[in-house]
């Protein structure tokens, strides 16, 4: 055998070792530990599929029960650190190195383990960036993934929550890796083939269906008048002015409020068809009233959302669905779409500094990034114009030949000046810098860099950072919307008024908005039950969001 097939030979040996615990490709849930111990080698790069929504939880439990004498020093390369088992394996010595993207619910524990030196951290990535590295220098030796069902040949139906799976499998299966899929059931014929069977080496029938977190459901009943006011300002001061048709929303209440104001407030402003028609978005339940009112042309999704499956099936003109009728989501493609084909990203954050850098990292929590740094960035590889993109480009400081000017993506932060527990959102210095110093990180975990941010919306007004001409103007524009935080009270009042005269800082009254009009009666739906009614009974909310 030549020296060019060593990886292939190693793969064949792993698969042969694994076959001892399988009937063909099918492995019983009880044999997961045996299978994993047979196919894993110390120091392997492993993707244990987990992202912000679906989890290969059966395989995660199995991995955490492996014998650390046999399986150790793994290098985990996965987008989400979400389940306790994802960190247990580091405590047990099964895993050692980590490259990841998002760690929402485990943010506090991962911070403690990083401080304690139990995890050798490579980097915290954005999704697309980690996926890219799967194909260059973080290619997995073994991928442990999740699907809804599979046949005995390994043909896999990933269902509405396809998410990361095609990308992970592509990188692993085509580069001599081993792919193990956990499925909720083994069937004779899958509803549709999301992953062809020749890319799947083992299929585990899980002891219970894989867990999916309803991460994108915002209860309209919890929406405040402050959030409604911010949403009104965003619609009138940004969406309408720039004519934003192609966009991505973050998951906060401010953006959910925008979704619920489209069929009411935005409709009264005559904006239907002119804004918010094409989306890169998870199927947010709060978008249902806008869809039902004919606002939305189409939506491509990163993943699905618990309870939205029946609704999506009945709206194939809007959503991407397969021959079987159910949603096809794809995180890598949707992230690419959000980066290159959307003119606006709007989301919230925990901290913004005087330049406009923002971060969700605090000293005790490392929540990771997810997709926001990708979609919240100005793509320098973009080459197609749109009115929105060109208008933003003209507002920015143009240096050199105007004929060579390019457009700008709008990156908007929508935040209340004080966050949960009255912690100020605006700070002199990001906690991320202190964290980077303590952990000796080369790169501070910044969510969105200042040079990508174009607007900041708070309950006090909108700061248009594109129009600022120097760092001093930028700082005062940010202070000028920072309310009663220390940063806001430290403003130069005369300068903020001069910025206001130039339209850099705009108050609700400058936009013709009466703050007292920001009332919950403007919301197209005031409760989860209203959303169910809007959907014609097709939306089936998870139990934790019901009050009936």
């Amino acid at each position: 055998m030549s020296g060019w097939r060593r990886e292939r030979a190693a793969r064949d040996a792993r698969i042969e070792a694994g076959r001892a615990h399988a009937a063909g490709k099918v492995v019983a849930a009880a044999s997961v530990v045996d299978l994993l111990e047979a196919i894993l080698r110390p120091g392997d790069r492993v993707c244990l599929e987990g992202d912000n929504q679906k989890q290969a939880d059966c395989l995660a439990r199995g991995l955490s029960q492996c014998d650390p004498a046999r399986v150790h020093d793994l290098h985990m390369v996965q987008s989400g650190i979400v389940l306790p088992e994802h960190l247990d394996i580091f405590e047990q010595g099964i895993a050692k190195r980590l490259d990841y993207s998002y760690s929402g619910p485990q943010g506090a524990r991962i911070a403690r383990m990083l401080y304690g030196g139990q995890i050798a951290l490579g980097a915290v990535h954005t999704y697309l960036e980690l996926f890219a590295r799967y194909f260059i220098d973080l290619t997995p030796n073994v991928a442990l993934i999740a699907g809804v069902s599979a046949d005995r040949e390994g043909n896999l139906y990933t269902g509405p929550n396809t998410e990361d799976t095609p990308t992970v499998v592509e990188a692993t299966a085509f580069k001599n890796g081993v792919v193990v899929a956990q499925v909720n059931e083994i069937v004779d014929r899958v509803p549709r083939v999301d992953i062809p069977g020749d890319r799947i080496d083992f299929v585990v029938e899980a002891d219970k269906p894989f867990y999916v977190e309803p991460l994108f459901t915002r209860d309209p009943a919890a929406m405040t008048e402050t959030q409604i006011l911010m949403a009104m300002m965003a619609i009138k001061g940004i969406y309408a002015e720039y004519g934003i048709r192609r966009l991505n929303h973050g998951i906060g209440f401010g953006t959910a409020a925008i979704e619920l104001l489209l069929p009411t407030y935005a409709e009264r402003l005559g904006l239907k068809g002119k804004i918010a028609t094409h989306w890169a978005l998870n199927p947010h339940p709060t978008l249902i009233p806008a869809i039902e009112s004919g606002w939305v042309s189409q939506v491509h999704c990163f993943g699905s959302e618990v309870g939205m499956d029946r609704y999506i099936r009945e709206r194939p003109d809007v959503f991407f669905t397969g021959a079987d009728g159910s949603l096809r989501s794809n995180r890598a493609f949707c992230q690419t779409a959000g980066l290159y084909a959307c003119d606006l990203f709007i989301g919230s954050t925990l901290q913004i500094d005087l330049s406009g850098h923002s971060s969700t990292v605090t000293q005790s929590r490392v929540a990771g990034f997810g997709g926001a740094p990708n979609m919240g960035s100005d793509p320098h590889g973009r080459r197609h114009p749109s009115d929105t993109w060109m208008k933003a480009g003209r507002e920015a400081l143009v240096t050199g030949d105007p004929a060579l000017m390019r457009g700008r993506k709008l990156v908007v932060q929508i935040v209340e000046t004080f966050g949960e527990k009255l912690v100020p959102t605006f700070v002199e210095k990001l906690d991320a810098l202190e964290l980077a110093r303590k952990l000796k990180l080369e790169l501070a975990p910044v969510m969105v860099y200042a040079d990508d941010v174009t607007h900041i919306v708070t309950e006090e007004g909108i700061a248009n950072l594109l129009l600022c001409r120097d760092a001093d103007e930028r700082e005062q524009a940010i202070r000028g919307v920072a309310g009663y935080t220390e940063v806001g009270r430290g403003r130069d009042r005369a300068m903020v008024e001069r910025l206001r005269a130039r339209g850099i800082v705009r108050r609700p009254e400058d936009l013709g908005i009466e703050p007292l009009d920001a009332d919950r009666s403007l919301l197209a739906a005031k409760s989860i039950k209203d959303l169910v009614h809007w959907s014609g009974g097709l939306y089936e909310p998870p139990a934790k969001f019901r009050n009936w």
Partner: protein
Amino acid sequence: MSDRITDPATTSWYEASARARLDGLLDPGSFREFIGPEQRRMSPHLPLFDLPRAFDDGMIVGAGRLDGQAVLVAAQEGRFMGGAFGEVHGAKLVGLLRAALDQKPAALLILFDTGGVRLQEANAGETAIAEVMRAITQVRAAGVPVIGLIGGRAGAYGGGGLIAGTCSRLAVSEGGRISVSGPEVIETNKGAEEFDSRDRALVWRTMGGKHRRLTGGADAFADDTVAAFRTAALRLIDTAPAFDLATLEAEQARLEERIARFGDCRDGTEIWARLGANDPAAIPAMTTAEFDALLAQIGETTHDAR
């Protein structure tokens, strides 16, 4: 949020402030407040905890007219400290009840929206609960019906749930909840296996408006509008039972029968099935009209007890 209501038929009771509920419930312009916010009778305890106070301490009391009849009313503001009973909050309700003994209104209405006793002034709050319950029995004994209306975000929990149990009649909406221990309290003490407070459908099957109406814990089921609560209040005033030994013995018998009949049930749906509902699982999603039809079909939820 406005405290004035333009259209009671479309205004959500659940969403409305306590003052807005009163504005839409009573005959237009008839409400006269006692000890209004301008008098600033605020909690003496909250400043010790560096907590903000409300000028009305979250309790609004006064007199008004309901379809021409003189009534006394009390409304809890659930958005101030969860509508919890503190010293001033409770004293205003006790005072209103005592005034009813003199004024003999057609009814006294309590618009519940409370999580129970305010922790920061627990002793005063607990005392207030006891005083309110005693005063309600005196008012009822004097022939004035005490009607509870429950459809706010905070429900009627803790001492509020106990007080509700002493009222002549209760109206509840789907979003309204009535109980003593809240879901989180039960879970904390007994574990998530016993009661998963995050399973909100379970919470409503156990404490929610439809369940309370089906088991006779409430006497009227109202749509979530201010107008629907007004209609329900008027009907309940007309049908309030006398407060005598016969009523109390009937109530005791009703409760004994209930525990005998449903005591082994593990879920609200089991109780509803035993009550004769054909498709218990469908009840939570029913509209008010469908639910009313079910109540008429079951036909045993009206009683002369309490």
